[in-house]
């Protein structure tokens, strides 16, 4: 089948990701570029412009040459450039199966939300669960604490894994965490132990989410926190402890899963639309954001 070059834009609450993919039409494809930039209190539209430009540069394509530009996440930000929109879990499912074809469950942990998704081999979403209106136990929460402890994000994992005894954390409010941590430091708890305790508490929450979605194995973790090896280790322990036999996987490009998935769905849609156009006028419209 004809190759289609598409872009996926994933507008998260902390960062924007863009992926450019050559889709081969048989479920496979080749990545041409994956770019990420943190929003850091800037106007997301400006950030998007930058990320998109870099990605297109890396992929060596012009925006007019793309067959489809798909947005996901806070799609409104991408309104000016996108062809259509797909919802977050749909895209993470697709991106995850692309990155790790064995994956039958996906756990996307970003800055504010965590989502557990059950998928089949074709990346069809079979079931899903999402955290509600409390940012306790997501990326923002871990970031706040790391910030306070003076630990960089990429150092968290190793530190946490080095801890001997985790410090149990009761309150896991993303905002109050700082006070809790101050309290812990005041009691002489080490940085590593605090981080480990936090990871444990987040892992419990995530394990619960996975349970609620009845997630199977193997599980690919996507989103920014896939890079947090400390959290992944705790999650594995938690799952093993509860008797669930789930193999936990990560991928270096995990954080881009949403953007990759969006690009792939864009290609899928483009082909379907083309087929429908051949068969007669389509009633379908791109789903609204």
């Amino acid at each position: 089948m004809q190759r289609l070059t598409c872009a996926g834009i994933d507008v998260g609450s902390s960062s924007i990701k863009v992926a450019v993919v050559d889709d081969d039409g048989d479920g496979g494809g080749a990545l041409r570029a994956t770019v990420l930039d943190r929003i850091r209190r800037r106007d997301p539209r400006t950030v998007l412009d930058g990320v998109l430009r870099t990605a297109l540069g890396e992929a060596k394509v012009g925006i007019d040459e793309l067959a489809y530009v798909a947005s996901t996440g806070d799609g409104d930000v991408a309104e000016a450039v996108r062809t259509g929109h797909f919802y977050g879990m749909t895209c993470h499912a697709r991106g995850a199966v692309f990155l790790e074809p064995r994956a039958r469950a996906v756990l996307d942990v970003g800055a504010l939300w965590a989502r557990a998704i059950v998928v089949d081999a074709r990346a069809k979403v079979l079931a899903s669960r999402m955290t509600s209106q409390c940012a306790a136990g997501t990326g923002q929460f871990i970031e706040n604490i790391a910030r306070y402890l003076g630990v960089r994000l990429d150092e968290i994992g190793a530190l946490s894994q080095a801890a001997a005894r985790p410090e149990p954390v009761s309150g896991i409010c993303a905002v109050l965490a700082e006070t809790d941590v101050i309290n812990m430091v005041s009691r002489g708890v080490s940085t590593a132990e605090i981080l480990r305790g936090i990871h444990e508490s987040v892992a419990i929450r995530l394990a619960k989410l996975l349970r609620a979605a009845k997630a199977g194995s193997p599980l690919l973790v996507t989103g920014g926190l896939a890079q947090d090896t400390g959290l992944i280790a705790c999650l594995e322990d938690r799952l093993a402890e509860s008797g669930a036999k789930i193999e936990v996987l990560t991928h270096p490009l995990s954080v881009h899963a949403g953007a990759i998935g969006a690009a792939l769905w864009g290609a899928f849609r483009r082909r379907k639309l083309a087929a429908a156009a051949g068969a007669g006028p389509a009633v379908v419209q791109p789903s609204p954001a």
Partner: protein
Amino acid sequence: MSEVDVIVGELEARFDDLSYGHVRAWKDAAPGRLAIGCLPVFAPREVLWAAGALPVFVRGAGDRIDTVRGDAFFQSYICHLPRSSLELGLLGHLDALDGMMFPNTCDVIRNLSGIWQDAFPQHFVRFIDPPQTGERASATGYFRAELEDIFHELCTRSGRDPDPAHLAAATADYRVARQAARRLALARLEAPWNLPADEVYLLRRAGDAMPPRDWAALVDRYLAAAAERGRRAEDRIRVCVVGAFCEQPPRALLRAAERAGCYIVDDDLTMQLDADAIEPTGEPDDADPMAALVRAWLAGGRPSAVRYDEAGRAGRALADRVRATGADGVIFAAPSFCDPALLDQPRLTGVLDAAGIPYMAFKYAENTGQFQSIREQAGTFADSVKLWGAA
């Protein structure tokens, strides 16, 4: 402005009038008229109506007021409906009502009835505990005595003669309303794009506080007008919404769900157990209309989370409904902390799993203002049915 817009405008005005101005107007139009507030989800509407009292369903205040004093009664892990209902009362919005009826639908409503007695000593407060036992002689006697008591008490208050003929007439009036409700449901099934969930919802909410025949007329006016719209069907999935029978989701939530790619073709919003679940069969029993009402309740109807599921058929009934309405899947939308709705879910999903019917679940509160996560979940659900559905 099109006729539909005019009607929807009227419905919105009614909905936004937290003080039930139209109920007051109805009462003022003739002496002796009463209005009785009814908490979800059961009220013996025929009995009230026959006694000259307009049944008015009070379903919380949604996101239209900030609850302040209502919070003084309930902890954070209790659903929201009772606090905003109290807030309405404390702010004087329920002054048009002469009393309140509390059905035994859950522990929260039950205890709310006691609070109401303390907080509004001037109200006629009545707790009603309809039998959960199916058709048994003991239940018939007990329930009939309860209803008779309510009938006589209200007749005394309204100055009406407690004549069984009033009961027969009231039953006939509500039959007209029930038939209109059925026409509305069918019309939506056929063309949900012409009858958005939000509008149908407003229309039904209007029925919460209107004389039955007036409401039936309003429904027909709306149906005629909406049919004129001739909107185009979009590529959306059809869903049944289950669990939202008591505390109501904010209207914006219904809109968010539809915008995320769904058509709501069936739901248990604004459920009134006597209406949706029970169809008094046959002609009213003119000789003994009260017996007919009692029989109708005890015979049961559509299963619901707040009635004892004696035969254990709730799950199958839901699967049948999904097929009958041609829905692609089910959205379980339950109020946070609602024991009846939430405890039912695993039983129901088990049956749906077995039947291969997709579903999703989320919780809400009547004053939720954030729909991002709901949009996301409903959107993903719609995406997956659309991309992978059989069709």
